[in-house]
């Protein structure tokens, strides 16, 4: 029993500490502090490649940083712990305040202290008229205030008006904090039920892609509840892609003309056109399609010794974001029947690996690119024959050959050449490799976040609440009207600024002049 009591006391104390202002402040600080590594250390969620680079460069400290989740700050246990505690502290702080606010909204303004002269602002006036008339006049002029009148004295000959305003301040404050909670919840819901996928589509009017399953994407980031079975189907094909550049190579505009199908259009097989641009995503119901990047997909035609050809266009990775010098690989399977059996065929696959420049610039034989537009496309390639790795059962990189295949002599270099568009090279067995040119590709992102609109709504109500709580000021005044010499009354006013008392002096004087317009000043006192 005693243990229970003690536990109860302990829990109560913990709760009180957690919901105190000091703790909230400390947690806010911790939150700011904890976010700092998120800005300074490379983050996996933003750029996994940079994290690997960092780990390679810092072999001692890197693994330790990884162990404390410094590369995944915003999903780390400690960041989560801080904001979860802040969340609890907020709820614990706000719930009683909400109840208190509701009570105060219902309550009548409090009775005046006995000695109004002890208030920060005080004034005594003499006015003509009787108590009832002056008190009624004061009440009438208290527009926008909550007020009540009490009768005091033995026969109720004294009227006392209590007035208060600025209730909206606390209301705004509570709205702000609850909206903050709503914002966090909306973000969490979006993270649970949302998904994001990227796919590269060559802009040559080709087949495009349909977002019916995660398999259709090159990369796919799903919320915890998304298993990929109920994606919103959208089909897209890209007819062309335009990019304008300044002579300096700085980009001016990117735009892709696409056709899309969604909803009923899928069954009716109607395509609708859209001009997909940066800053102009295609919004379809709850999904958004973005133009996120672009590059080039070179086309090669391989003519095998028996005269049959295979043509392939494969996206290469832009290595230089300014000049779009790209690198990649193309793997070509010989047509069936060119070689007598599957084993022989596998030994005669062709792989082309190298660099692509949209505008050729040669330094001796070294290829680089001088401009990002497709002015004078050229490639510098190594041509291999052998096992390209497609039949190894291992996943192969889209942009590089597996070096182990080359080390093991299963893939052998046949030639190293520079080719301009239309040029070709002949291997020793008569195979001809021709570089046909290149087509641009675009990187399309499909995003789905059902709670996004609620994030916006919460953010807006949050700001509205904040503005109200910063602009509205809480004021209390009391007016005591008591009979003086016949025909006149003594009016005593006292005022209190409950928040932000700068400028309250002038405000009080103006208020006094307004409330009792027909008065002679009997004495002003001010306490600082």
């Amino acid at each position, binding site marked *: 029993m005693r243990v229970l009591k003690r536990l109860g006391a302990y829990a109560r104390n913990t709760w009180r500490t957690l919901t105190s*202002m*000091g703790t*909230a*402040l400390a947690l*806010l*600080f911790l*939150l*700011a502090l904890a*976010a*700092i590594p*998120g*800005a*300074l250390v490379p*983050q996996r*969620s*933003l750029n996994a490649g940079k994290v690997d680079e960092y780990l390679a460069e810092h072999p001692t400290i890197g693994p330790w940083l990884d162990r404390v989740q410094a590369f995944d*700050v*915003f999903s780390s246990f400690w960041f989560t712990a801080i904001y979860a505690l802040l969340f609890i502290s907020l709820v614990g702080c706000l719930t009683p305040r909400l109840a208190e606010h509701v009570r105060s909204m219902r309550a009548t303004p409090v009775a005046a202290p006995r000695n109004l002269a002890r208030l920060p602002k005080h004034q005594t006036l003499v006015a003509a008229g009787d108590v009832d008339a002056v008190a009624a006049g004061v009440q009438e002029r208290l527009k926008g205030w909550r007020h009540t009148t009490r009768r005091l004295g033995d026969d109720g000959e004294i009227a006392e008006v209590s007035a208060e305003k600025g209730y909206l301040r606390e209301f705004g404050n509570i709205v702000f904090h609850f909206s903050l909670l709503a914002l966090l919840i909306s*973000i969490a819901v979006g993270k649970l039920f949302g998904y*994001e996928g990227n796919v590269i589509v060559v802009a040559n009017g080709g087949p495009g892609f349909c977002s019916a399953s995660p398999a259709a994407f090159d990369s796919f980031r799903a919320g915890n509840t998304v298993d990929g079975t109920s994606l919103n189907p959208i089909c897209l094909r890209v007819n062309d892609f335009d990019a*304008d550049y*300044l002579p*300096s190579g*700085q*980009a*001016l*505009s*990117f735009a892709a003309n696409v056709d899309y199908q969604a909803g009923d259009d899928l069954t009716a097989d109607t395509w609708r056109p859209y001009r997909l*641009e*940066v*800053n*102009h*995503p295609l919004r379809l119901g709850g999904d*958004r399609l*973005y133009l*996120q990047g672009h590059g080039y997909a070179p086309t090669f035609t391989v003519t095998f010794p028996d005269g049959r050809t295979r043509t392939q266009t494969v996206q290469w990775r832009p290595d230089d974001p300014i000049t779009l010098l790209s690198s990649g690989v193309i793997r070509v399977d010989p047509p069936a029947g060119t070689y007598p059996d599957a084993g022989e065929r596998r030994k005669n696959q062709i792989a082309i690996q190298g660099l692509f420049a949209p505008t050729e610039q040669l330094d001796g034989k070294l290829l680089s690119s001088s401009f990002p537009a497709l002015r004078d496309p050229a490639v510098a390639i190594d041509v291999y024959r052998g096992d390209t790795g497609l039949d190894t059962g291992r996943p192969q990189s889209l942009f590089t050959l597996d070096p182990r295949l080359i080390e093991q002599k299963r893939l052998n270099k046949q030639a190293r050449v520079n080719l301009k568009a239309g040029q070709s090279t002949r291997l020793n067995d008569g195979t001809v490799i021709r570089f046909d040119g290149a087509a641009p590709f675009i990187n399309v*992102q499909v*995003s789905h*976040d059902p709670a*996004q609109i609620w*994030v*916006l709504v919460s*953010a*807006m109500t949050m*700001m509205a609440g*904040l*503005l109200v709580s*910063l602009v509205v000021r809480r004021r209390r005044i009391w007016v005591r009207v008591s009979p003086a010499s016949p025909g006149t009354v003594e009016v005593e006013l006292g005022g209190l600024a409950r928040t932000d008392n*700068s400028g309250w002096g002038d405000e009080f004087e103006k208020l006094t002049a307004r409330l009792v317009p027909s008065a002679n000043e009997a004495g002003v006192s001010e306490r600082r």
Partner: protein
Amino acid sequence: MNGPHIDVGLARYSDLAFTSTIIVLVIALLLLAVELAYSGSRRADARELVTANGSTVAADSGTPGVVVDVPKRLVDERIGRAGLALVYVGTAMLLVCIVLRGLATSRVPWGNMYEFINLTCFCGLVAAAVTLRRPKFRALWAFVLLPVLILLAVSGKWLYSNAAPVMPALQSYWLPIHVSVVSLGSGVFLVAGVASMLFLAKMSPLGDPGRPGRLAAVIARLPDAQTLDRIAYRTTIFGFPIFGFGVIFGAIWAEEAWGRYWGWDPKETVAFIAWVVYAAYLHARSTAGWRDRKAAYINVVGFVAMVFNLFFINLVVTGLHSYAGVG
């Protein structure tokens, strides 16, 4: 977009206005510093003299022809007033520089770091001109001009970029909204940060009245601690929602341009940190035991976060906001 037109002539005039701004503000700073360093204690007496004379005129208004010699203003005060006038001239020049950039490029003139810093400094100067409009605050101007001039010098020397159109990601109607609101918030926070730093100086042993030493003498000439604290608080509560809106507008734009409203990009992260720090400041102001110095320290930390976000994040860390036209 068909062929961007850059008016090179206007761009050159804009650059000229920028150089003039710096020169004018440097002179203004010197004049204000002279006043701050050399004004004697005589000023208080001089003030009373003026009022005494003034009331004499008012009382004798019935009698015509009474000419009262208004005593000449003290030299240091005149220097200070000249300095303040130059501050206004410099602010106007900076506005000219910004407007001409916009006209030269036919877009809003805040598309790279150089232009953004110019706009932020302009907002800071305007915020200071509004907050410090009373003559007794003139002593604070030197401390506002100092960071503004450092920012402008860094911007002109290292971050300058030629007038040019902006990259596709910035071609949005959100560019004028997001960047200008963030600039305004940053400029207001600059005034708040300076006020809090001066408040801390005033509260430190250096601010003790009667302490000998040049620095102590300068600090003694600042407005009292309570006034400085009030300036810091009022500018912060003005800047806080503005900066908050700036971040939210940024998020709305990010949803349109980058495919997500928030992605912990370094700039977003530090903006979040700064916002949390300023929120902590506001909470500290209403927590017993935190009101004075601790709150002021928090405000200074917020200001440091803003400056860090401006320079370090844009210039050193690579992120989506690395459009600075540098590096």
